[in-house]
């Protein structure tokens, strides 16, 4: 039995301990905002936060998660859209949108450790997340927008 928190709720999992978190979230809990893209931690579509830090849920097994706290895209906007989501909408980032929840989770993780990321910081942190529609230019702009907005709201 694995005990963990998902989006603030306590969960107990007694299935296959090798099951990747991705499929627990999607097929068992129904949090389908976390996407399946590659299954090998190559594309970032499945990115969620583990204790506030971005991880690839497709390559994180349930047995590794005892006592940890997972946040998915569904868990970041309980009090209205997150600042990063707002920036994404303001810049009109998405095309197909499939990778964007993973991108947003990765960006939240980035901004939590680097509130004022440089272009190089953004490249380093975001290059594990593939967008096949090619929205990278807008993702970069949205991250800068979110950082600016955060600085404004805190000043």
């Amino acid at each position, binding site marked *: 039995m694995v005990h963990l928190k998902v989006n603030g709720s306590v969960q107990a999992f007694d299935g296959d301990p090798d099951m990747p978190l991705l499929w627990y979230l*999607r*097929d068992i809990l129904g949090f389908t905002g976390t996407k399946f893209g590659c299954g090998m931690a190559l594309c970032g579509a499945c990115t969620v936060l583990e204790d506030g830090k971005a991880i690839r849920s497709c390559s994180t097994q349930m047995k590794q998660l005892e006592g940890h706290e997972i946040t998915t895209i569904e868990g970041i906007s309980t009090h209205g*859209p997150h600042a990063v989501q707002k920036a994404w909408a303001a810049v*009109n980032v998405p095309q197909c949108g499939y*990778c964007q929840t993973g991108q947003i989770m990765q960006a939240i993780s980035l901004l939590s450790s680097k509130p004022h990321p440089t272009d190089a910081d953004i490249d380093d942190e975001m*290059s594990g997340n593939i*967008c*096949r529609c090619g*929205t990278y*230019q807008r993702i970069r702009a949205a991250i800068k927008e979110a950082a600016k907005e955060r600085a404004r709201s805190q000043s």
Partner: protein
Amino acid sequence: MTRRRFLQGALSASAFVRCVAKVPLFAKTAGNVAPGSVAPSIDATAFHPSIFLGIQADGTVLIVAHRTEMGNGVRTSLPRIVADELDADWSRVEVIQGDGDERYGSQDTDGSHSVREFFDTLRETGATARLMLVRAAAQQWGVPEAQCVADPAHVVSHKASNRTIGYGELAALAAKQPVPKKEELKLKSPSEWRYIGKPAPGYDVTDVCAGKPLFGMDVRVDGMLYAAIAHPPVLGGKVKSVDDSATLKFKGVKQTIPIDPFTPPHHFQPLGGVAVIADNTWSAFKGRDALKIEWDNGEHAVYNSPDYKKQLQETARQPGKVVHKIGDPDVEFSKGGKVIEAEYYAPHLAHASMEPPAAVADVQGEKVIVWSPTQNPQGVQEEVAKKLGLKKENVTCHVTFLGGGFGRKSKPDYAVEAAVLSKTTGKPVKVVWSREDDIKFDYFHSVAAMYIKAAVDDKGMPKAWLQRSVFPPISSTFDKDAVYGSDGEMSLGWNVIPFDVPNFRSENGKAVNHVRIGWLRSVANIYHAFAVQSFANELAYAANRDPYDYLLALIGSGHVIDVKQPADVAAKYPYDTTRLRHVAQLAAEKANWGKKKSGNGWGMGIAVHRSFLTYVASVVEVEVDNSGAVRIPNVYTAVDAGIVANPDMVISQFQGAAVFGTSIARTGEITATNGVIDQSNFHNYPVARMNDAPVYVDVQIVESQAPPAGVGEPGVPPFVPALCNAIYAATGKRVRELPLTRNGLF
């Protein structure tokens, strides 16, 4: 409320209600549809003059997006065309996704024709409803129709008496008006447009960013089983024997089911193989990995890419079937003047959309419901019906969002798999393709070899031009004996070139397919533009001229040329090289072409191409270091697509096309060994990431009142040769074979 209602259209309320019952958390996480709520329907509105449009008594305007959303923005652009002519308030519009239904006309969302094909129809739809609303108001007030106007939005006004009435209040009376004839409609002039040509954010941007269950991969239906399929490693392969004993021991695995191999041609039929049915995706995948299958690989096990490449190149060196001829190039070639020739090669590509193929089917007796991310919902209906021996109208296809399509999801083989498995199990089944399935069993973009030869005058301008392309054609998917490119493929940048050359001949050689060939974003334009635009650049250097100046000289002063378009297309969309010239000038100007000297690892390249009726020029700037690493700091794109519905979406499409083109050029390569595809996932089929994509893509849209043309695909073809030409300018290294990784570059 607006967003809540949307999904009922996309995924059907009943499915949601059912899965809410089974998976309590789902209701909480999805939150899109309240149990027991009723899906909005055009037919149920107070006023519905068209299958595309309905107005409710509360003033809510429902507009159907009948084509597929996959990042192309059609759920925004198409409804805004209707809303514009209707003079509707966009904030009171709800977009409903159309199911597969032939009454809508074409729903094949490929070929970049959503706006161009439906622009007139959708405007007339909006204008018809507006006129009926105006007439209803005039009747209610007892005033002449001419004194009533739809202004401000969503309201009819009688200015003389200072009266207004809302669309909702008018809906019931409007419904009683006779539907006006087309001649009675007064379409707005472009200066009166509220939405057409004005930038707008995506209608669904908030839901997308919230992670709502919009995609085919996200569909969950009560009692649903999950399936992963072991497909034959080689096209046309069959199962000789299968040992599923280890598979059946896994917790969660229910059963295995053989799927019949297809009868050639493969068309959109399932590939066959063995399906593993489980109660979650992970168990299905794990169970599949444990299958022990012996395959009969069949005739295509002979397919080895290095050998096949040699065959294609050899064929390209021999005379082929003549596609089009102007003058007689052979006379010029026989004169013994200066001749320049080059060969080009471009490999297979996989679509690799971020959402691998997935579909849910629920077969209930004679009826089938399919939820599918599909570019071709009527194709889903047809293929499922054909496979199960049912009538097409008994198959309902709900169209979900697509996590990318790029042409792959025009082919509904995976939806047919779901239907076959649902029929066998008696339960709803979701088929999920892994990334490995997606890459290994794609309908691949064709591998192609091209040969071009030109005889040039003393100024280096071509007097004669011969070009020959060879590739296994898309038609081999529908006709197993097809070996020549179709007229359609030849029209994609090959039959005629937009250059002033008095003697010209295009040819096409034979090639046999060994994998499924399909269309991928901009199709044969990719390799054809790569060859033609690279060769034009080679001629410029051979003539010791600036490539941009030379390109303008090749295009000439500008006039209408005959590119063998169907008569109706040629009448509406003549190929005018003035427009091609103009985009070249615009992109070059924006890029400050010629201001900085190329060389020492820095350079700019230019290419132009018209595809899907849109004229595009790309200028690409590169920095190449000593290790061969190629950085792309800037791309300057100029686009003449006629009238554009949503300029911001057009900018997105062309920004994305540069990234898509980067993937093609830098690393895009699918190969086969003994018929088995060598690549499987993003580690060996890499695509552009943020740190190797173009940093900045500038997009200039030419203001035009010409009829709307395509925007989803045309950005891709000129980008690739512009990049390769830039690399030549920077390094002196000529890329004649894609991808860059075959040239010591990356």
